[in-house]
């Protein structure tokens, strides 16, 4: 499972790139694989201020609906309109073209490194049934 070292991770399988300004948020390859084909994505509007852990959207796949939780606190400054138009981008390129939100950070709680997240996956992997 692809877990890029430059990113930070939440236990809810979101990734965040805090090296860019604003920061970029998406879901991990593990989450995308567990969801299957994503058929719908809804994202919080730009201008929305959210605390860390608040719901910032939902992704719906053939078999399930998953809420997205913002792993950091901040203001949504952009959403990926290409993903809203073609949600399959999330599965095809979760760390690239499938990014979801850009966030101006106000609060960055402790997040997992790539190694931490890999260990988290090993502990929680139950076969990955979505």
């Amino acid at each position, binding site marked *: 499972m692809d877990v890029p070292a430059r990113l930070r991770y939440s236990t809810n399988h979101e990734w965040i790139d805090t090296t860019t300004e604003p920061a970029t948020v998406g879901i991990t390859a593990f989450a995308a*694989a567990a969801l*299957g*084909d994503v*058929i*719908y994505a809804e994202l919080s509007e730009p201008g929305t201020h959210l605390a860390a852990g608040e719901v910032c959207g*939902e992704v*719906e796949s*053939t*078999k399930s*609906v998953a809420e997205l939780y913002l792993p950091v606190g901040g203001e949504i400054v952009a959403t990926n309109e290409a993903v809203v138009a073609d*949600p399959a981008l999330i*599965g095809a390129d979760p760390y690239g073209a499938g990014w979801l939100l850009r966030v101006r950070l106000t609060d960055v709680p402790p997040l997992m490194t790539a190694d931490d997240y890999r260990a988290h996956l090993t502990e929680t992997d*139950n*076969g*990955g*049934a*979505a």
Partner: protein
Amino acid sequence: MHQSQTTLLHPPLHAAHAELGARFTGFAGWSMPLRYGSETAEHRAVRERAGLFDLSHMGQLEVSGPQAPAALDHALVGHLSAVPVGRARYTMLCDETGGVLDDLVAYRLAADRYLLVTNAVNTGTALAELRTRCAGPGTTVTDHTAERAIIAVQGPRAADTVEALVGAESTRLGYYTAAELDVGGRPALVARTGYTGEDGFEFFVRAGDAVDTWRALLAAGATYGLTPAGLACRDTLRIEAGMPLYGFELHRGVTPFEAGLGRVVAFAKPGDFVGRAALAERRDAGAATVLVGLVGSGRRVPRTGHPVVTLAGGTAAEPVGVVTSGALSPVLGRPVAMARVHPDAVGARSRLGVVIRGDTEPVEIARLPFYRRPR
């Protein structure tokens, strides 16, 4: 869904699925392939070419003996004694109140022998009910689920695939018929049945022959684009085809009439049968709810349990029913659903919506099935 892996039963093909990269899901106590790659691609493969399914979780119960035909006439709502040898019949097991305990396909293998293929979730219930209802000399009920497997080939190229392996004998099989055939040197019951809305075949084989049969079918279908297909696409295929699934459109709280399937109840057959009085009453009174098709216009999918409401000026007015199943239809490109609604709600002028996580989405009532295969 959250049963631990160690308690799940594995079908004989489990390792073969793992080799193909399957993602597994727990279903009715079994670990079954959910999908191998993209479930949408698998769905399209079945509609356009052919898909290969493992259905070994489904129950295989045999009812045999000189009294078997009469016993099944009593136990099930269909007229099983009138089914010719070699033919299959879709039927139901109901309780005394007319509630559906299982919907199943019965294959008459011989004058005195039937194979009943049950929903995995109901195999235990069906076995117990049949043993009670068919008690007495002259009928034996045997559960063969554990020592057999079921493999299905479904899609417009299913006949080509099966003919390549089995020969012309297979393609002479008419719809809803079955025959014992030699499949690459192994005995199998081959039936022209399925649950996808496509032409197709189901192979009932010994557990020890499952892997060889699966591999032989994959090889035979390679030139026709045969693709392994999991339970995720099986669900979207059956929804497009307007077919009920037990636990969703059917359960013990409804009779066949609430699912629009009153035709499966054979009131004219000789003798009494379990549920007869209650079912006759429901037939005369009319179904308490009706099962309808709904088509949405956005991308959000009405799902099991979502409320169906009347619309007044675009907002939800009055609850009239509930969604039983829904999916984004890969063929239509629109959300489709089946819903159980009050009969008064389905008039020509009714405007309905579905409440999806707080938002009311307008839907149109559509005739089922959503998809009918070209012939």
